[in-house]
């Protein structure tokens, strides 16, 4: 049993951490998020050049990592800086799928040349990965898709979309879902782009008789989609942990400096005890991510149980930590100007990605 990072990952952590502290200030982050594109192309390329994207793929796929630990290390750091570049969608969600299928797009993703987004969930799916109604029909040798995909992360800047659609089965069947590669410039593809309330780029994607190319086995994509989400959940949980750590640090710092009634507010026992509970929950978050990351390569049930456990725990603990950070900061945390508000927003909204606290609690029960 060993909870330490190996030498390579420690270096990765240090390098990325230092880079972000120096290059990715909160001011820059807000600027990137509010720009037309919603992120910085230059940063994107720098992450690729630093090997951050490559660290999320295993050697077989041309990367040099790709394990649960790597996801954890990278995304905790990205969370600390609230990084908005679409690494999660390209390198984890799409990356998992593409590398499993030995796609040559992986090399381009690792180099930063290409971005790929996974368009999977639909307006009626809520968080249910099998609830897919989009249809794909074969027209001679080509496939044609009709779909409305919602909340597709990183869609606007993606050079390629991976779109799921039914080639068989009913709306809730795990069987009968297939994956397709779609060119966003192709006919019938339209994007309704927007920013999430915490500053990340996404889009609803509409496909009307759009040409598509089958990826992998017909009808059998569900397992791969689930795996991609398992890895994305580990990543987003680590990202949440990183953001929570910063929110906690800011709050502790504020408790040391902010005075009320003539004393620093850190002297108030009520706040001390609540922060003690925050520290405990941070440790619990980390442990649940360690568990989920550690079982990522195990069998489905074991993997998904720990993934759902982590997402549930992180949802609860994240809400507590974000709300305490706001409450203890007081009015100032209600403003755009205060960095802590952006951390709090992201921590809370992570609950709406890939299944919320309740969804994963229920799923954990089912898997048990």
């Amino acid at each position, binding site marked *: 049993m060993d909870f330490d990072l190996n030498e390579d990952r420690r270096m990765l952590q240090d390098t990325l951490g230092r880079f972000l502290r120096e290059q990715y200030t909160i001011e820059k982050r807000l600027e990137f998020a509010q720009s037309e594109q919603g992120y910085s192309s230059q940063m994107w390329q720098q992450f690729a050049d630093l090997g951050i994207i490559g660290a999320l793929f295993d050697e077989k796929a041309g990367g040099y990592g790709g394990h649960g630990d790597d996801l954890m290390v990278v995304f905790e750091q990205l969370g600390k800086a609230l990084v908005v570049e679409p690494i999660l969608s390209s390198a984890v969600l799409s990356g998992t799928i593409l590398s499993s299928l030995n796609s040559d797009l992986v090399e381009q993703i690792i180099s930063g040349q290409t971005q790929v987004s996974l368009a999977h969930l639909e307006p009626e799916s*809520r968080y249910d990965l099998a609830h897919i109604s989009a249809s794909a029909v074969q027209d001679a040798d080509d496939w044609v898709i009709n779909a409305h995909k919602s*909340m597709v992360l990183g869609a606007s800047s993606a050079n390629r979309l991976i779109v799921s659609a039914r080639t068989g089965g009913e709306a809730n069947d795990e069987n009968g879902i297939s994956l397709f590669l779609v060119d966003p410039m192709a006919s019938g593809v339209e994007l309704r782009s927007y920013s999430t*309330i915490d500053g990340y780029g996404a889009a609803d994607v509409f496909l009307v008789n759009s040409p598509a190319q089958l990826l992998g086995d017909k009808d059998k994509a569900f397992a791969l989609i689930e795996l991609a989400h398992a890895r994305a959940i580990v990543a987003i949980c680590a990202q949440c942990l990183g953001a929570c750590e910063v929110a906690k640090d800011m709050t502790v710092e504020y408790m040391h400096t902010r005075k009320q009634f003539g004393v620093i507010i850190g002297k108030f026992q009520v706040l001390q005890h609540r922060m003690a509970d925050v520290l405990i929950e941070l440790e619990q978050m980390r442990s649940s991510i360690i568990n989920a990351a550690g079982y990522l390569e195990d069998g489905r049930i074991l993997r998904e149980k720990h993934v759902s456990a982590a997402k549930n725990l992180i949802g609860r603990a994240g809400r507590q930590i974000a709300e305490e950070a706001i*409450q203890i900061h007081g009015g100032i*945390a*209600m403003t755009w100007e205060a960095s802590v*508000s952006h951390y709090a927003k992201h921590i*809370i909204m992570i609950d709406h990605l890939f299944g919320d606290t309740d969804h994963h609690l229920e799923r954990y029960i089912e898997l048990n």
Partner: protein
Amino acid sequence: MDLGYSESELAYRDEVREFLATRLPKRIANLVKNGKRLAKRDYEEWQAILNARGWLAPNWPKEHGGAEWSAVQKHIFEEECCIAGAPRILPFGLGMLAPVLMKFGSEQQKAHYLPRILDGTDWWCQGYSEPGAGSDLASLKTKAERQGDHYIVNGQKTWTTLGQYADWIFCLVRTSSEGKRQEGISFLLIDMKTPGIEIRPIILLDGEHEVNEVFFTDVKVPVENLVGEENKGWTYAKYLLTHERTGTAGIGFSNAALAHLKSIASTQMKSGRPLKQDPYFAARMAQVEIDLEALKTTNLRVLVQADSGAAPGPESSMLKIKGTVIRQEINDLARRALGPYALPFVSEALDEGYNESPIGPHYANPIAAEYFNNRKLSIFAGSNEIQRGIISKTKLGL
């Protein structure tokens, strides 16, 4: 003991409903119900309608044009307004300044300002909070020095809600630095057009401009704008803060928010059935509803007691805490109810004129922003921690 409304209360409720059904502009109610931004004119339009009916100032005595309602009436009115989607009545002039003027202002001040508050001539904002003061109001630093017939005001106020629309601001200022901190405070009325006043927006975490900072640089304020006596402002300030009881619990808002939540949970589907049928989500909703139902009675008990002359005191702290906890919980559930569509946020979609198709369900866009915005409820107007301190001191003697 009798839980039901009396016949006259029921008749009054019907009257309120009838009034709201016929006089509340549909356009405005739709803005409110859809979580859209209200413009200055929307508030003004509604307040003028209320004033025409004599219902704009429930708390005021009739001699000043108020409705002089009982606590139960005010409760009914608030509940009905919220359900109907009426905009909130801005309290700065009507609920905060006016009672102070009535009790401590000069005859001249009453005669001049009160009618102008009612008819909407003057839009007031508040100048209580200062940066760095937070819930420790008495630590305020804005200074007013007497020079002949004027005070010269220098300093800064913050969290000034809708100050961008205001004609006047009432301010707590320091006129003496001797004695206890509470003793050197005065209560001044300041024309926002006076040279030396600068107002700057504070953008909130949801991107909205709702509050402001107000800067005072050598602002000349005539001495007749002093309310009551110099250095007695703390008394007036406390009177202001404890005077307005109705609404502390926010029952009306929570009612409306819960109704909205239920309608969302009827529409949102989870595993093939409406979310409201999901046992776990239904349990959360039921629990907050049960708490709210009890709080309604707690609120009425306090109001009825206050009507019969007993001072509410720490009870309003209790109402404030439980009321905000409940409302924040409802906001949290609404956010959860939306699933992934809680994420997209299009600020322009909050404008009345916006007519692109919505992203996700039509009600989704403002929900997460409301959750974040309402974190303020447990912070502003005396944080819940301050309120617990008050309860502990007064009710427990600790």
